[in-house]
């Protein structure tokens, strides 16, 4: 048969496309569960690392179920929302891309309008996930997922707030395509570690968030951490992301703060943990277990 005839060329192309197409479809379907599991484990690892717990991918699921005792959904007004949806299944990056970022940029200075629009986002209002971590010592931390914009693409992270609704217990950041050595450094520990111990509210109870300060945060600044030199846009993106995300949760954290003042339970343990860094307790106990 003449392999250069039109007929042969058509037959060859058709057979090739069918064979290759079905091969790829089989591979994609067959590997899907493994890939989904990897994504899930990574999310669990990231959530846990924001409270200072480093786990391998294999044990991520067990440790996550052990430490994350509650998952809450917050609505656009910063109140607890009664819903079937689990916080873990909320894809904040997808929500952000599919319209939520427009709500933020359109209502930068008008908080009430922003909250109103968030309440009517999607099917039954926007969902903001919140993970409640319970340490071995009974301490509680609230972990908030964040998404924002870097220089080249999305950045995201998790920030953990102590049960006083004010002090940062830990933070992790990650990015898709920031410049290695510059913006990509937000992933590194030296960048995220100084967030620990910063506070979201000033002495008068006004929300100020934690921002990234260009040229270095002054000593004793309760609301600023060092920026990355050469990574200004990524640094600003982190500031914006932290400020905007926690702003939505602000009413919830304020309510925590009030109930905390009444109960005053952590005071008993304070002297013990005073000499240690804020996040060392759960890690210590974890090590002891191993």
């Amino acid at each position, binding site marked *: 048969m003449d*392999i*250069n005839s039109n007929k*042969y*060329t058509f037959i*060859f*192309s058709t057979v*090739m*496309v069918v064979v*290759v197409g079905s*091969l*790829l479809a089989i*591979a*994609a379907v067959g*590997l899907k569960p*493994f*890939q989904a599991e*990897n*994504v899930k484990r*990574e999310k669990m690892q990231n959530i846990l690392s924001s409270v200072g717990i480093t786990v391998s*991918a294999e044990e991520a699921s067990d440790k996550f179920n052990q430490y994350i005792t509650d998952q809450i959904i917050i609505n656009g007004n910063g109140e607890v929302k009664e819903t079937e949806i689990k916080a873990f299944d909320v894809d904040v990056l997808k929500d952000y891309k599919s319209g939520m970022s427009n709500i933020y940029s359109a209502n930068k200075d008008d908080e009430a309008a922003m909250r109103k629009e968030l309440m009517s986002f999607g099917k039954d209002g926007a969902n903001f996930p919140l993970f409640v971590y319970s340490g071995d010592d009974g301490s509680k931390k609230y972990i908030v997922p964040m998404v924002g914009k870097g220089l080249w693409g999305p950045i995201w992270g998790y920030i953990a707030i102590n049960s006083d609704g004010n002090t940062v217990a830990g933070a992790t950041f990650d990015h*898709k*395509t920031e*410049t*290695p*050595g510059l913006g990509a450094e937000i992933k590194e520990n030296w960048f995220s570690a100084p967030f620990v111990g910063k506070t979201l509210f000033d002495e008068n109870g006004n929300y100020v968030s934690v921002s990234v300060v260009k040229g270095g945060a002054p000593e004793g600044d309760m609301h600023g951490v060092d920026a990355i030199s050469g990574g200004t846009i990524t640094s600003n993106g982190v500031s914006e992301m932290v400020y905007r995300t926690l702003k939505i949760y602000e009413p919830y954290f304020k309510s925590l703060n009030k109930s905390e003042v009444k109960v005053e339970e952590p005071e008993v343990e304070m002297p013990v943990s005073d000499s240690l860094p804020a996040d060392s307790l759960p890690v210590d106990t974890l090590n002891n277990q191993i």
Partner: protein
Amino acid sequence: MSTAVAEEVKEEVKKEPLFSKKNKKLITDPLDDSNPITVQVLGICSALAITVQVKQAVVMSLSVLVVLIGSTFITSVLRNMIPSRVRIIVQLVIVAAMVILVDQVLKAFVYDVSKQLSVFVGLIITNCIIMGRIEAFSLANKPWPSFLDAVGNAAGYGLILIVVAFFRELLGSGKLWGFQLIPQSFYDMGYSNNGLMILPPMALIVVGVYIWVQRSKNTKLIEA
């Protein structure tokens, strides 16, 4: 009986041994004399992009090895069946299918590495080495030489990647394969990582230095 043995020997002599001199050259040539990166200047883009860490470079080299072997082998087997008018499209489809398979497997089993390589696995499709070897070699040769040629070229590519990544990771972040190699005491004494090594331009310069060293040793590469 003796004639049968003699015939067998004859048979053996007639058949080209698997690693004849010619076949060996297919593997060794691309390592030095016709290295795809430093001599033919193919596949430079990925060499600049994923040589920040040795681990990435190794995984990338292995991915290219798998894709190159798979696609050259398939085209070589099909070489008498591929209509010449659509051969580029056929090559592309084969390479693309191989790349997607590799990408999916990486995502399923070495997730963290696949995340670091991100788009560059997908970009193996556009790596000139692969289309170049298919077009120039495997379309006209039997599967076994094509296989050797693929191994040789992927090894030549990987060699450069790993050498460049070695220097970039060591000087740029003081690590190798992710492990801290330069002790803290050095940093305390005032040593600091060279941030420029992490940026793509430095990869070009390291490749340039490699070419310099290579040509000063291998004088037949020097053009008059």
